[in-house]
């Protein structure tokens, strides 16, 4: 079943057009990667889906309904959550308060604070610390946990690996498998192509705001991605 579909999605920052006619389809239960160079429009794509940028209603379809015109907070209620780039944790809130704020929409589902702590046991020990006192990896776990607290059907992850050590990245992607095992659909935006392709079944490659390539990950010649990635 198709969970998310964008139809000729275009997005603007003022007069600057950042996305051109993007058509992406994500099926329920899938993990899909969106890759591309810096400035290719990956983050803009996620922000448009999450409602942070205004688009025409039917440019973004979720569960078969147009949601492009909804505000970001309404879209959380519909079941789309975001782990934003740069983590964006709330500095005045403790780790636990950051997680609880993720559950602000009170959307019912399998995730609650207890289950998030089971997924990331380290966070339970650190729960009373200010979120910004944590290491980068722990902050990233808090970001993912905070998004899960709204019990999303679709989880948008923006650059989970950014600035983290390889061993930490492996941990976080290991947890991602547990999340998808719950049936949560994931869209991964990554600059780390190998990491993204290992974790996903299909990928979309963006280049300068346009869709350059899409294919199943399995058996795909990674050298061929380079051409789409850099436009060579």
């Amino acid at each position: 079943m198709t969970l998310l579909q964008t139809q000729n999605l275009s997005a603007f920052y003022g007069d600057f057009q950042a996305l051109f006619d993007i058509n992406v389809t994500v099926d329920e239960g899938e993990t899909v990667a969106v890759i591309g160079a810096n400035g290719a429009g990956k983050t803009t794509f996620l922000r448009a889906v999450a409602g942070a940028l205004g688009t025409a209603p039917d440019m973004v379809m979720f569960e078969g309904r147009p949601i492009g015109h909804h505000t970001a907070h309404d879209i959380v209620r519909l079941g789309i959550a975001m782990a934003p780039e740069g983590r964006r944790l709330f500095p005045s809130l403790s780790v636990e308060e950051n997680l609880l704020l993720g559950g602000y929409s009170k959307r019912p589902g399998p995730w609650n604070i207890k289950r998030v702590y089971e997924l990331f046991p380290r966070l339970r020990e650190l729960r009373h610390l200010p979120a910004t006192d944590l290491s980068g990896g722990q902050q990233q776990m808090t970001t993912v946990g905070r998004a899960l607290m709204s019990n999303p059907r679709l989880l948008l992850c923006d650059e989970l690996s950014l600035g983290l050590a390889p061993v930490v990245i492996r941990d976080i992607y290991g947890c991602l498998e547990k999340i998808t095992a719950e049936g949560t659909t994931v869209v991964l935006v990554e600059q780390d192509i190998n990491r993204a392709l290992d974790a996903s079944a299909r990928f979309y490659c963006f280049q300068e705001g346009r869709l350059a390539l899409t294919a199943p990950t399995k058996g795909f010649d990674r050298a061929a991605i380079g051409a789409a990635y850099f436009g060579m």
Partner: protein
Amino acid sequence: MDWLNTFIQGSLLGGIYALFAIGLSLSFGIMRLVNIAHGDLIVLSAYVAMVVGQGTGLDPISCLIIVVPVMFALGYALQRGLLNQTLTGGLLPPLLVTFGISIIIQNGLLQGFGAYTQRLQQGAIETASLQFGGISVGVYPLLVFGVALLALGSLQLLFYRTGLGRAFRAVSDDADTAELMGVDNRKLYAVALGIAMIFTAIAGVLFAIRTNFDPAAGPIRLILAFEAVIIGGLGSMWGTLIGGMILGIAQSVGAALSPTWQILAGHIAFLIILIVRPSGLFPRTRD
């Protein structure tokens, strides 16, 4: 003993200044809104209490049962209907709009009630006093100070023990990300100004029992509120109480030297602190 007396009276005076400041501090802390109409909303609350008192025969403090919800609703509607639209264009639009609201309130009150000086009458409590080993402390200032402590204590609980308070702090940190987490910022801002108006209503009524007021009494309350907030440090709730107390003590000391020095002494204390510690005594705000 005289100076101890001056010190105590001044500290208690700080209670009402802290109450003036709470509403201002909340709206700045949560939505970065500098509300120039804050002083006039204090005075408006006093007039609402006066009208309610005349209509029902209740004493001013009992009138709060009606004044508080009325001011909450006014704050909610003002934020939802008007001020939310000003928050995306930088610091200037909310300043201009609340300045306009200030003028409208002052002239509306002038139109409705004339320029007469008014006073709310609470009765014997206004002049009652307690003796503590030679020092006479007014029951009413003590009551006002107690209310200020209670108000700050309840805000502390609201901010650090409830989901609503958590959302207020999150929005204050990063409004865009809070929206991505499911917080309806505009609605939350409306609730915030509503809550700010609860404390404004209490401040307005308690002030009007103690001091004469007229339609033009707002701006000086705004300045006192600003001074208390800045002395205490932006974003620090208990700092606001200390700021109010410093203002009150400076005014009492000034008045003890010469009655004409009372108001000026408060402003001078404010200026000195601004020079020595520009970010206030207990700054909490990060940006």
